[in-house]
């Protein structure tokens, strides 16, 4: 591509991502001059219509922010409400939540790495085009997703917008024998998890290195999913309640989603890559063995490698669910209740795409007065734009069409969930 002229790369509508967005890259004097991740997914105003609804409805309503990761919303909103009311959820209910949530990681991760992202690395338009060359991969991907979905289905009724969960626990007691159905072909499922990871580890993934800030929950003894302290690779660790003090948000004219940065203005990355790098030791040993066999160790240094983190977490999730089922004992009560009281609380969970932050204030009748939701994808937009600037050289060395594709791939590294991201509240305005 020649140097001096001015041109643009416009991805009018991103494909193979959830939701409606585009990218606009301006190139001037052989350098990427300006990047805009343009989110035109229509706003849905959840924070507005949540007002006045019962705290009990928050899980069902917020789940509908995202059809790919509804459980993350269920978990975050339930946990925030439980914090307000001082409810301690039973161990059994927590285990069920974790199982289902891991089921969602599998469903969401496999959807992304197998269906949406792998085509990029193999130069294809869609997974359907991959089917002929790699039938086993597609079969495994479908089987893994089916199994992940089945986990959610048994515990919650259906994979998308499950109905079985509530503030305080679950709506009904799940019998151990119901869960054991999942173990019928468990050995094969484990093998599938491993095969998928191995396949991903052999993809031609671009090698680039640059510095990034990662932020995620950090587990104490377990890989983080439902809770943890917030940590980053700058050495910070803080409780979830302080999250808001550490970040700033901006509304952009070109985007229906907010952009988030650290207080010092630096973008940060949340999601599998961040979790992986900050919690590597907590991944199941079986997973680490495979990674190390293929020569991968943390930190993974570029966002193209996020696909590896996803595949690793998928295998981890499969292993984890098996262990949780074994440990599971039916509780005597499906859920805990507490006297309704006014209050405010924050909860962060690890959605497949990263930290999902919920904050609620309720009145003494249990009505929601205020809701604030920060989805992971919104947190990643600043990083996406930054990323394209950083890999600029790589992009500009390619012919136009490929360059455009690389821009798209770069965005896809984040597995953006655009529907989720069109939420905003409390912000600083950046006029462009």
């Amino acid at each position, binding site marked *: 591509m020649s140097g001096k002229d001015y041109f643009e790369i416009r991805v009018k509508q991103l*494909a193979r991502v959830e939701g409606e967005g585009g990218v606009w890259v301006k190139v001037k004097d052989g350098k990427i001059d300006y990047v805009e991740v343009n989110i035109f997914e229509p706003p849905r*105003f959840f924070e507005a219509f949540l007002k006045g609804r019962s705290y009990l409805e928050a899980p069902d309503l917020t789940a*509908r922010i995202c*059809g790919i990761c509804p459980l993350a919303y269920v978990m975050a909103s339930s946990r925030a409400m439980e914090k307000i009311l001082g409810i301690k959820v039973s161990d059994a209910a927590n285990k069920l939540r974790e199982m289902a949530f891991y089921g969602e990681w599998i469903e969401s991760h496999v959807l992304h790495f197998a269906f949406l992202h792998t085509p990029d690395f193999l130069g294809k338009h869609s*997974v359907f085009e991959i089917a002929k060359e790699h039938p086993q991969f597609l079969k495994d991907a479908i089987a893994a997703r089916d199994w992940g979905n089945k986990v959610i289905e048994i515990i919650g009724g259906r994979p*998308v917008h499950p109905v079985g969960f509530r503030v305080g626990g679950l709506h009904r007691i799940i019998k151990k024998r119901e869960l054991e159905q999942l173990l019928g072909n468990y050995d094969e499922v484990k093998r599938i998890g491993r095969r998928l990871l191995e396949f991903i580890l052999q993809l031609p993934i671009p090698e680039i290195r640059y510095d990034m800030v990662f932020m995620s929950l950090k587990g104490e003894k377990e890989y983080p999913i439902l809770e943890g302290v917030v940590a980053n690779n700058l050495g910070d660790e803080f409780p979830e309640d302080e999250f808001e003090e550490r970040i700033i948000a901006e509304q952009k004219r070109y985007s229906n989603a907010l952009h988030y940065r650290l207080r010092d203005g630096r973008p940060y990355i949340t999601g599998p890559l961040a979790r992986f790098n900050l919690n590597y030791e907590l991944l199941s040993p079986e997973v680490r063995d495979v990674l190390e066999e293929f020569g991968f160790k943390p930190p993974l240094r570029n966002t193209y490698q996020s696909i590896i983190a996803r595949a690793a977490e998928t295998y981890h999730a499969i292993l984890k669910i098996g262990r949780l089922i074994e440990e599971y004992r039916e509780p005597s009560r499906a859920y805990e209740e507490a006297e309704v009281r006014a209050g405010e609380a924050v909860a962060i969970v690890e959605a497949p795409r990263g930290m999902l932050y919920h904050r609620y204030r309720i009145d003494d009748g249990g009505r929601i007065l205020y809701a604030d939701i920060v989805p992971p994808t919104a947190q990643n937009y600043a990083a996406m734009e930054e990323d394209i600037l950083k890999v600029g050289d790589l992009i500009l060395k390619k012919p136009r069409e490929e360059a455009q594709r690389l821009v798209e791939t770069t965005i896809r590294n984040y597995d953006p969930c655009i529907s989720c991201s069109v939420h905003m509240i409390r912000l600083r305005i950046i006029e462009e």
Partner: protein
Amino acid sequence: MSGINGKIRLAVFKLTSCSGCQQQIIDLGELLLALLDRVEIAYFLEASSDAKPGPYDVALIEGSVSTPHEEKLVKNIRENSKIVVSVGSCATYGGIQALRNWMEFEEVKKTVYEKPEWVEALEKSRPISDFIKVDYAISGCPANKLQLLSTLKQILIGRRAYHREESLCQECKRKGNVCVVVAKGEPCLGPIIKEGCGALCPSYGRGCYGCFGPTIDPKPDALAKRFEDLGLSREEVASRIRNVTSWSEPIRRFLESYER
């Protein structure tokens, strides 16, 4: 039909939604592969970057119309498609985001956006049938993947697509659930909501909150009376009934009169 090897050309579009209904297509798994023997996916942006132009034999539309852009888009889809199917309760009824339709829009915008004037959205989130003729409507939040598949199978053999739209209670009883209203005193929207989900909520011991939308001949007034008997205040009754499918014609009409 018109696609490659006589396959029907299918397009999947997304408007204002959570993508959960498109997800149902992908969740078909092996069945999706079987379907691909008969169907060419010509446009499905979430799954493929190979977006082919119309005309399409069948367009599945997920999501409600809530921006001026979408209003144009649906009209365009209609012009380019032989059969249009609204998939899910957003497309069919306006969806959960239609809960804002019950509020003052300027207030709504202000609650969420610092710069409300930058936001391009219609005042109301509406079903696509408000803008174009819809051949078949599948409801559900999300749509039931098997019902969606069944619709496609019916279209494939060239018949009118049909599903029973009787009360959820019938499905609930066929499944052998224990009625939560009778055995627990919990309000349940089942009597006015159509079957299709598998009576999921009652199967999990809770009342239905109406994500599949009203039956053909629902009786929300009678149900509201019953909820009042169960001890709910009028405000609570309205709030229960005003949920995922609140902008469907019968529920909307009921709420308007109930709250007057």
